[in-house]
């Protein structure tokens, strides 16, 4: 594909302008995105303007051992939804590298990866590329070279000793390379090195953000629900059904070891949520009086605090603001469940997402975005659930989905991607939508996955399960 594209630099500002343009649209414009049957990689509904995103070329090359690395990086860059990925005409068969125009190369860039140095920049510019990435191997080190096409030189070169392809850490290490490319080219951190937890057949699973490497992480045979990450990406909490009650656990990602949170023996505890500093766990507890939001000190496993007193209403599904100051939650105090907010100590409870009494359907499953600006949730619209986003500052909501049933949204660390459960393909599975472009893709082609939780950017160590 050689897209007809604007020629020239200012890619970053172009992207920012596009983002500004999109956010300036009235809400109904964005709500109208999700109106057609979609397939993998197909953009829906958006008025797509070629050229607003910088063009990115991942250069073909040797050695073959890097093919899988190249494939993962290419997909990561594509899934970032921040680039126009440009496929070279003829694939690998046409040499576009130094050989095509050796005279231009000297003085430009360093010989980081041998053949990657010195590109025919005008040719790439004509193809619409703003950046080109070369992956080469120097001894046991993988070299990533980022070419700035407009500037006509190498912008950044990174060297990384990747774990062997058989290592459980391999893919995450490659995802980090892709995030480095994003950081070096656009100055923004990526979400390639993230994973999602979800529930399927009553077990908690993890999966890379690109849909690969699905692994079982819960070790027990009991039915599990509601996995939730700690902000450090090293632990997660979840709920398990025990005889007559719901038990919360915190599990270490690296060791797989888990510990019960509060042992009361009788209460049904569910929907755990870590405070951003990781010291407190908020959760819902259902007793005969009703369901209310509680917190517990995780470090000492003590100091149970009740934040809401429902009596004749239920209060549940807490989610912290990223500064830890506030908690959004669900309350049935007005009849149907709706989204409310309170200070983290339980004071100052008020309505968060506006609704029309007697008209608006039930609203549930709020999750505060990592940038603090939005709360995603789902709402019953004409008998089926749809994903909505609340703007925290203006307290306005917009409907994001309209195809099929869509529920339980969870934010990527970039606060522009959401994963949610949808039956748009005929069965319930996990999908990812980019709020900026409206692009939507399935995370995994498997029925029954639900209750997703997107990780923060995962730390270098202790991120993998044994």
């Amino acid at each position, binding site marked *: 594909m050689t897209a007809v594209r604007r020629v020239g630099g200012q890619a970053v500002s172009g992207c920012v302008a596009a983002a500004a343009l999109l956010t300036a649209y009235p809400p109904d414009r964005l709500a109208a995105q999700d109106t057609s049957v979609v397939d993998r990689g197909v953009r829906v509904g958006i008025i797509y303007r070629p050229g607003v995103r910088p063009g990115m070329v991942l250069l073909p090359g040797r050695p073959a051992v890097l093919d899988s690395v190249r494939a993962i990086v290419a997909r990561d860059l594509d899934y970032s939804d921040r680039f126009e990925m440009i496929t070279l005409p003829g694939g690998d068969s046409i040499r576009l590298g130094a050989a095509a125009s050796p005279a231009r190369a000297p003085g430009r860039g360093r010989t980081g990866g041998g053949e990657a140095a010195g590109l025919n920049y005008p040719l790439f510019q004509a193809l619409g590329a703003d950046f080109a990435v070369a992956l080469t191997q120097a001894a046991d080190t993988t070299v990533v070279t980022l070419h700035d096409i407009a500037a006509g030189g190498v912008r950044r070169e990174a060297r990384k000793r990747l774990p062997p392809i058989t290592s459980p850490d391999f893919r995450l290490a490659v995802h980090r390379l892709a995030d480095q490319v994003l950081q070096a080219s656009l100055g923004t951190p990526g979400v390639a090195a993230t994973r999602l937890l979800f529930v399927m057949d009553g077990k908690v699973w993890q999966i890379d953000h690109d849909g690969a490497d699905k692994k079982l992480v819960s070790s027990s045979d009991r039915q599990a*629900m509601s996995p939730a990450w700690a902000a450090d990406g090293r632990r997660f909490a979840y709920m398990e*059904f025990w005889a007559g*009650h719901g038990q919360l656990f915190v599990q270490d990602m690296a060791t797989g070891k888990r510990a019960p949170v509060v042992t009361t023996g009788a209460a049904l505890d569910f929907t755990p949520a870590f405070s951003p500093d990781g010291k407190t766990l908020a959760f819902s507890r259902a007793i*005969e009086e009703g369901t209310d939001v509680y917190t517990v000190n995780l470090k000492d496993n003590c100091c149970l605090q009740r934040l809401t007193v429902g009596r004749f209403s239920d209060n549940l599904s807490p989610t912290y603001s990223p500064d830890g100051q506030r908690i959004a939650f669900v309350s049935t105090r007005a009849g149907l469940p709706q989204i409310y907010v309170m200070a983290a100590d339980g004071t100052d409870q008020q309505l968060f997402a506006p609704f029309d009494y007697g008209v608006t359907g039930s609203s*549930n*499953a709020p999750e505060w975005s990592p940038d603090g600006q939005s709360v995603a949730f789902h709402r019953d619209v004409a008998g089926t659930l749809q994903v909505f986003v609340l703007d925290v500052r203006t307290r306005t909501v917009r409907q994001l989905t309209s195809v099929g049933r869509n529920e339980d949204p969870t934010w990527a660390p970039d606060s522009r991607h959401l994963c949610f459960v949808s039956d748009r393909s005929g069965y319930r599975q996990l999908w990812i939508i980019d709020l900026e472009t409206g692009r939507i893709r399935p995370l995994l082609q498997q029925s029954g996955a639900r209750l997703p939780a997107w990780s923060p950017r995962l730390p270098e160590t202790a991120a993998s399960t044994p």
Partner: protein
Amino acid sequence: MRRLPLLVLAGLAAATVAACGGNPPPAQPGPQANADSIAAAERARQDSIARAEADARAREEAERVARQRAADSLAAMGRTTEAVRTMLAAMIHFDFDKSNIRSGDAGTLDQKVGILQANPNLRIRISGHCDERGSDEYNLALGNRRATAAKQYLVSHGIEAGRIETVSYGEERPIAQGHDETAWAQNRRDEFEILSGGDALRQP
């Protein structure tokens, strides 16, 4: 012949008796009195055999009846317990996103009140369930309300609260797998399960 009634008396032992009866030789010339005394002795012997056999049969019959009575009584008790258990396990159902007891289900709960009153050692657990339409996590709260609603009904009718546990499974344990109102209506329910004291239940 006097031997004939004897044979009738002997009943099922006729074969034996007849064999014995066939042994005495026909009337022979000889002292008459002696022959008579031999015949009398023989009759007495026959009578005692028949009596012993009748006694044994009677004893066997009595034992059989006793055994049958015991078995019948156990079976009856078992049948009662089973019937009470079935009554106790009868589910109640709810409207969509509601946790109030339907008027039609009050009778079902009244039966449980009677059972709990007739069996003071009985402890139960009520689990609330939902259909798949609502939110997965909200349904845990809704199921909790449904279980609690039934418990409150029982408690308001005099059952001690400590004998009833409640739990919610939300929509996690459907009994009907379909995706239509028929299945949903079945899944919006309370289940009643015996925790203890349910080995031998009395009828209310």
